[in-house]
């Protein structure tokens, strides 16, 4: 046993010396390999974290939301619809809501404006999200002006700034009273954006939605489970940028492995001949080549993964910010929570280490079983 371990260590010695002969090339290879693992791991950790977090906090979303659709577009919903709903079994509460979007040309950002009754705001007070406060440089007590639907400039005082740790959901929110909302947007009394219902029993939500669809045929129900499903498939690997990233990474790995597997140079063949002539068996040569692949891929995996972990959970995945932000101005300043799926990490490990390691052994097979007396000539 000891002899076996010692032998492996000798083989590693030889492999390292061999790799160090072409320092530049091999370090370059290691660097690229590590960067690919870093990129894949970062994406993996970030998306898993967001998905899990969305799954947790959006559990508190309303069970059922009703939108009114007119000519295929989301239209305002009149208050009578609340009465039309009447009493439906299982519905514990129904409420009409007001919310919308405001474009602020000063910073070219979109805000989400919401009416919040339980905050008890006066007609001239607002609560803003931390992202807005940061972007517009406003603090508590400051005044912020919005342009209303009829061209007037309406001023509101900032009563509160929503906490920084809720930025992921509230970064771009502006909360206000109903009066303030209607004066900004000109939504007439008696009309609302949508209706929110609370259903006691989770399993009944669908049934309720079906009943409501009959009572209000021009409405579109949105179930909480749909909301959750939306965020479960966010950053899905099957589409868009993530797919391109993955395809690129797979291709890179294939190229590395191909380069290794596509045969040996004359010099490498000669060296194997020498090794065999001085007493190495075929198996020893194969093992040594295995270590060559393993050393590079293991190092790349560890360095890439550790860097990715730091990047995502200590650096808020800042390298992704430009991509996610896109053309937006507001982007939440948040720290992802480390929800890690061990299976994903194991898969990444498998795919970054195994194919490359195996690829290094393949071309050696043929060379290592030839007679070593070729070195005599």
């Amino acid at each position, binding site marked *: 046993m*000891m*002899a*076996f*371990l*010692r*032998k492996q*260590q*000798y*083989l590693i*010695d*030889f492999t390292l*010396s*061999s790799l*160090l*002969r072409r320092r530049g090339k091999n370090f370059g290879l290691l660097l690229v390999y590590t960067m690919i693992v870093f990129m894949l791991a970062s994406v993996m950790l970030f998306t898993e974290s967001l998905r899990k977090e969305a799954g947790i906090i959006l559990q508190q979303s309303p069970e059922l939301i009703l939108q009114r659709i007119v000519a295929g577009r989301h239209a305002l919903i009149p208050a009578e619809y609340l009465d039309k709903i009447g009493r439906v079994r299982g519905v514990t509460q129904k409420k009409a809501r007001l919310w919308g979007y405001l474009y602020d040309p000063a910073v070219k950002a979109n805000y989400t404006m919401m009416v919040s009754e339980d905050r008890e705001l006066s007609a001239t007070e607002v609560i803003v999200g931390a992202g807005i406060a940061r972007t517009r440089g406003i603090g508590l007590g400051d005044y912020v002006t919005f342009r209303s639907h009829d061209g007037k400039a309406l001023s509101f005082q900032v009563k509160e700034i929503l906490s920084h740790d809720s930025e992921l959901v509230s970064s771009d929110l502006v909360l206000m009273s109903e009066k303030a909302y209607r004066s900004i947007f000109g939504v007439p009394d008696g009309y609302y954006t949508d209706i929110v219902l609370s259903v006691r029993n989770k399993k009944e939500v669908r049934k309720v939605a079906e009943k409501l669809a009959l009572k209000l045929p021009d409405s579109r129900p949105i179930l909480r489970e749909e909301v959750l499903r939306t965020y479960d498939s966010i950053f899905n690997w099957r589409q868009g940028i993530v797919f391109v990233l993955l395809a690129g990474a797979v291709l890179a790995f294939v190229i590395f492995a191909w380069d290794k597997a596509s045969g040996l140079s004359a010099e490498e063949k*000669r*060296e194997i001949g*020498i*090794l*065999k*002539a*001085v*007493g*190495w*068996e*075929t198996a*020893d040569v194969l093992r040594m080549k295995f270590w060559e692949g393993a050393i590079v891929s293991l190092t790349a995996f560890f360095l890439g993964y550790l860097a990715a972990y730091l990047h995502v959970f200590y650096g808020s995945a800042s390298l992704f910010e430009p991509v996610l932000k896109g053309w937006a101005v507001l982007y939440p300043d948040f720290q992802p929570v480390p929800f890690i799926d061990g299976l994903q990490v194991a898969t990444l490990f498998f795919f970054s280490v195994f194919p490359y390691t195996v690829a290094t052994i393949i071309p050696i097979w043929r060379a290592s079983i030839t*007679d*070593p*007396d070729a*070195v*005599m*000539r």
Partner: protein
Amino acid sequence: MLIELTDIRKAFNQGKPNEFWAIQGVSLTIEPNRITCLKGASGSGKTTLLSMIGCLSRPTSGRIALDGKIVSGLPERFLTEIRRHTFGFIFQKFNLIQGLSVLENIMLPAYPLGLDYGTLKSSAERLLDQFNLSSKRSNPVEWLSGGEAQRVAICRAMINDPKILIADEPTANLDTKLSREFMDLMGELRRSGKTILITSHDPLVFESPVVERVVEMRDGLLVDARS
């Protein structure tokens, strides 16, 4: 260790139109603890014969026995075992692994044995010392002169303490002075109990006083066997 060859024949590209019989029936006994020289022009088959004696290749027909035990028919794994413990090779072109240090090159043949590192290193350093190479131990082998590389090749051949040393045209890349030095070294090694087999067409080798027996070959057959 006694080496016995019985009716050895070796063909290349057997069955194909360019079939070539390099060895056409050689029977030979090589005594232990002697320096024997295989003399012949290039193409005479001496390198092929040497390669078979050293268990680097197998004869097409015939038997090779070491101390009475037949080795020519053994599977590769056993051949490698025997080769490791019995033979030390010094190649014509030295065949050192480029980019590695002198010390690593010398220790290389012993890697598969999984010996204790300290022990192996001291054996290697002893050899380096014996051949006056200690100061060069960490140098990459590309930096060595011809004579130094030759001595490193000898050290490497000696690391597993083999009974038999085989040298193929050892003086081909050396000048006269170094060639004489090499033959002196061979004499010393023989005195320490080794059996040495050299192939050469260099008169400096086969006419050297150190050589105790010359076996001449031509066209795959022995010409003479005189002591």
